[in-house]
């Protein structure tokens, strides 16, 4: 449901043939809904602007991922967040940043073909993967971290955005950024689209080369 669908669902429609009621209680509720919506939209804009400002060329993958995490941790209510980069030739999955349990933790690289997990699924299908509950995650072959196994605190919602999924980047995606929450089905459709966009910004920042000539030369035609 989009943002305006949300608003429509919350606000009962006026009776047919009647103008909107002037009932103060209804009007107050409408204004609260509108303010909530405006706050939500402002938050999204701030996230996009912040990502395009803070994710700079030349930063290491871990630094870029950390900058993105710092921006979206609170607004998106994240329990865990990671950046995975794939080395297709060596069949290896690396984690420049893996944030869970309130801090960044080293996560060992692993063989992609032996233990694809949700990240491998996202890479294989080259499109975002959204799992609303841990049960869904188990069906898709979730690989739990050591912290998750020990603490039993496992995020319910898992969203993975492939990096470089468009054929313009190459034959296969080069990584995945994952946003996770303890709440089941935590991410609305509009938030999923926002995370897609944040993934795109991250992909461009990872591959930005300020000295690269323009495609087609300086005239750029």
């Amino acid at each position, binding site marked *: 449901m*989009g*943002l305006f*669908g949300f*608003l*429509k669902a919350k606000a009962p429609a006026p009776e047919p043939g009647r*103008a*909107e*009621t*002037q009932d103060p209680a209804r*009007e107050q509720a*409408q*204004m609260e809904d*509108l*303010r909530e*919506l*405006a706050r939500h*939209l402002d938050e*999204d*804009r701030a996230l*996009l*602007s912040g990502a*395009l*400002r803070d994710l*700079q*060329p*030349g*930063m*290491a*993958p*871990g630094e870029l991922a950390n900058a993105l995490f710092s921006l979206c941790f609170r607004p998106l209510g994240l329990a865990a967040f990671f950046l995975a*980069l794939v080395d297709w030739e060596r069949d290896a999955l*690396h984690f*420049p940043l893996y944030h869970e349990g309130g801090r960044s933790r080293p996560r060992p690289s692993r063989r992609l073909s032996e233990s694809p997990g949700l990240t491998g699924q996202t890479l294989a299908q080259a499109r975002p993967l959204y799992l609303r509950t841990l049960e869904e995650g188990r069906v898709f072959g979730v690989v739990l971290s050591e912290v998750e196994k020990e603490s039993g605190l496992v995020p319910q919602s898992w969203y993975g955005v492939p990096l*470089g999924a*468009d054929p*313009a*980047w*190459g034959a296969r995606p*080069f*990584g995945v950024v994952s946003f996770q929450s303890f709440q089941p089905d935590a991410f609305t459709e509009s938030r999923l*689209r926002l995370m*897609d966009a944040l993934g*795109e*910004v991250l992909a*461009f*920042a*990872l*591959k*930005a*080369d*300020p*000295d*690269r000539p*323009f*495609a*087609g030369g*300086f*005239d*750029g*035609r």
Partner: protein
Amino acid sequence: MAAEGSKRMETPSAELAGAGASPEVQRLRAEVRERDEDRRLTLDLLRIMKPGLAPKVLAESIRNGCESALGLATFYLALVDYGRDRLLFPLYCEGGKARTITPRVFSEFGGLTTRVLTEKAALYFPEKRLQDDSGAAYTDAERITGLIPESWYGVPLGVGPGWPDRPFGVLSFQAFAKDAFSQTRREVMDAVGAALALALRANPARPLDLR
């Protein structure tokens, strides 16, 4: 994903126009409508950015995506070749069509584009009078027709600690209406400029530090 963008404004205008609502509710609705359109516009424009596209192609895609929503009269992309002291315009759209602008000698050119490049910051001129005061250089079409956009906004490309000292270009948005671009609209244009800079310099083959 395209569905969200293609439905722009249909639902809000139908649902939120509500006659009979109090002025405060109507004001809030208008505010939310503009914010929602800004958000959709930003997401749509980010989605069209692809690596390996020529500057003109990317700029045309941006123009097609935002011309109507932003009410643009003129839109252009300027790139600077500092080595050859040239200012080039891969895309310059005014009067409803793309025009060919002859490359200029950068060091001899003193228009608003140059100011954005030298100040390394976005500049907003909400009225033509302010553009004149700042040394605007008008195109032939503008001089002949007298149709000069009142609002002028220029975003430098390649600004920030990760970029070389000097921006490599400017993206300019112009409208006939005075003060046509709100603060939030200008933030959208800033975001588009930043994304365009990344897309123009993206190198899919760039090796990554996998640690």
